[in-house]
């Protein structure tokens, strides 16, 4: 039973990684491709780590897996936000932009 749950979680993790990879390949814009990359990272790695926690029956080693989950949940949005901010500052414009709030606040002329 435990092995079946672990297998199902691993398959969901692999499918989420695959969906994120398709999104990275087919989205029209850089700022939407960040969404695909974040889905690969959080949806794939965190779900696989939860599968590891279940497969070890909540032993002492699952503390290490929880530490890695917390590290990923902290660092991955930080990296995505930093690279998106840098990309906006050097002039990569989003497509189909209706209203730009950043233009009058911080990076404005």
């Amino acid at each position, binding site marked *: 039973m435990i092995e079946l749950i672990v297998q199902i979680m*691993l398959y969901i993790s692999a499918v989420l*990684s695959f969906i*994120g*990879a398709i999104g990275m390949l087919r989205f029209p814009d850089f700022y939407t491709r960040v969404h695909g990359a974040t889905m690969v990272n959080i949806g794939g790695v965190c779900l696989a780590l939860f599968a590891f926690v279940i497969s070890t029956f909540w032993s002492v080693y699952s503390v290490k897996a929880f530490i890695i989950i917390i590290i990923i949940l902290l660092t991955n949005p930080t990296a995505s936000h930093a*690279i998106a901010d*840098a990309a906006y500052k050097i002039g990569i414009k989003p497509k189909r932009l209706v209203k730009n709030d950043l233009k009058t606040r911080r990076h404005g002329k």
Partner: protein
Amino acid sequence: MIWVIFAVAATLIAIRAMIGPSFADRVIAFDAIVNLVALLMVFQSIKVQSQLYLDIAVLITMLGFIGTLAIARYVKKQEKHKWRGVAE
């Protein structure tokens, strides 16, 4: 079967890293590839029922985060006109 899905996902991200029009697409693609390698380490750790591979996973994750943040901080300090040909 699960390795096939994983390999196809890594191939698609590698294609985006090759044809990415700006540098930021390549940085995001390499960050995703690094996290996929960490995911492979977690898979191996579940497969052999050992916790030693999780050390490699946390090290790879931290290295990818520091690399992405270093590139972002470096690019943000540059002049805007220097990157005009690269960004578009």
